[in-house]
């Protein structure tokens, strides 16, 4: 169970570039939940994910995962519990190293790395089958550098690597946004397979309402650094893309009203 409680984060405080990215985000994700996180640009959805991953310290609040307090834990230690796939297909793999070496790195996620050989014959043999299941013709190219592969192939491998050891939490940060539609669909299909197979607790940030409708059992909609809507199981089942669009419009309307009300108050009282 992931518990995010009253989390605040402001970037560049006190400067002209000040961004109040998270303004009191509180949410509890149950084990086995597959949550799609939606929101406009700058709504704080990626910031929320990165706060959980530990990419930066948060200003206020607490993050716990299965009774482990993550709040002050450095990023590399959280990796023991969390698997991640990034938006940029180049972020999740080491380009100059071979596919096998990359997988060997992922096979020890969060574990101690000692002086035993990274690529023993026995270990290598275990790599082939899961890579074959990606259906991307990569199983025969385990010794090729990953940098030579396409974005889709790299993202599929990153997904495989992030879940090589079953994580308590899987974070997907718009992991198909940089791919062409066909490849994106392929990676989404793969995501579904992998998440369902192990019933992984998953947070997936996405721009695509279609993905949010088709995948998972819960939708979080962020706006201005807060959670605007939380659509759980029963609501989520019946929701369609148009409903989501309507919700977005509603958020926008509320915003405008707030603005005009504020101006009215200013005019009358100041």
């Amino acid at each position, binding site marked *: 169970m992931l518990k995010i409680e009253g989390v605040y984060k402001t970037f560049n405080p006190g400067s002209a570039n000040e961004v109040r990215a998270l303004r009191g985000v509180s949410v509890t994700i149950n084990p086995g939940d597959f949550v799609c996180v939606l929101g406009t640009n700058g709504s704080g959805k990626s910031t929320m994910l990165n706060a959980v991953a530990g990419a930066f310290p948060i200003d206020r609040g607490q993050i716990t995962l299965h009774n482990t307090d993550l709040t002050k834990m450095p990023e590399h230690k959280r*990796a023991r519990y969390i698997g991640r796939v990034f938006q940029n297909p180049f*972020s999740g793999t080491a380009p100059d190293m071979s596919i096998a070496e990359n997988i060997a790195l992922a096979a020890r996620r969060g574990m101690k790395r000692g002086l035993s050989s990274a690529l023993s014959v026995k270990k290598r043999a275990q790599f082939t089958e899961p890579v074959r299941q990606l259906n991307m013709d990569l199983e025969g190219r385990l010794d090729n550098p990953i940098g030579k592969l396409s974005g889709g192939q790299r993202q599929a491998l990153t997904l495989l690597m992030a879940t090589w050891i079953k994580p308590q939490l899987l974070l997907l940060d718009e992991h198909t946004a940089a791919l062409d539609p066909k490849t994106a669909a392929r990676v989404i299909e793969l995501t579904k397979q992998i998440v369902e197979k192990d019933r992984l607790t998953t947070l997936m940030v996405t721009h695509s309402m279609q993905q949010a409708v088709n995948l998972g059992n819960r939708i979080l909609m962020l706006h201005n650094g807060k959670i605007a809507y939380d659509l759980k199981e029963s609501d989520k089942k019946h929701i369609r893309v148009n409903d989501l669009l309507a919700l977005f419009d509603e958020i926008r309307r509320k915003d405008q009203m707030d603005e005009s009300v504020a101006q009215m108050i200013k005019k009358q009282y100041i």
Partner: protein
Amino acid sequence: MSILIGSITVGLILALLALGVFITFKIFHFPDLTTEGSVTFGAAIAAALIIKGYSPALATLIAFFGGCLAGLVTGILHAVFKLNGLLSGILVMTALYSVNLHVMGKSNIPLLSEPTVISHFERYAAAGEEVNILGWLVPQKDLFILGFILLFTALTGTLLNAFFKTNLGVAMRAAGNNAQMIRALGANTKAYMIFCIALSNGLIALSGSLLAQFQGFADVQMGIGMVVWGLASVIIGEALINTKSVGFLIFGAVMGSVLFRLLVAIALQWGMNPNDLKLITAVFVFIALILPGLLTRLENRKKLKKLEYAED
């Protein structure tokens, strides 16, 4: 021939320096200027201890750890205090100049009459014996020294290669290749970087201490230009090997160092002014760095031309 053997020996001693530069420059893309100080630091420690009567082997070992210490400081300045990489190196290099003078007590320590690791191996050779190699007469002791250094450098290279294929070593390479990725997989990239800079400078100091013992003196100026020397070796090695495999790159750096030393010896033999050596080395490294990019651009232009003709 004796000059040739001497050049190969020095090339192999400086190959340790090339391996150090390889670790920081090729694996972490970190141009580490500490090198200039830590070569001398290694030489200074070894020389100072040897004239105090310590065993040369122990003195050499302590020189290695001294270099590690210097690298540790650079690593901490860069990774923990977030100082610019070049600046971290420059600061430590500058500080080491004073440290080296303190360690040595003067600016030059002669070692010719002292026991060294080199003289230790000389003893195994029959004094005054000469060996006939392809018609040249070579002092036996020179060959023994060459053999010892060759073994030592080969062993170091092999160990380094083995290390970079362990779980820890592969993770360290990944830290240089894509830090975000390996952090997300649970590696402390800062600690890795500090360790690698320390190891690199340890090897460089080792190289310096052996060089001092081979040439028979330690001098406070001996580190000048060593970064570029190391870079030249690594770049030549890369060009020779032309692969991304660590094992071959390590082998390439060693070969590059020997080859570069030989080239220099030949150039000096032909009457090149020794004062021009560092200028020419720098120009050489500059050309070697920009050449691959230029060649690709040229090739692309050629391919483009063909493409246009095909359309006509």
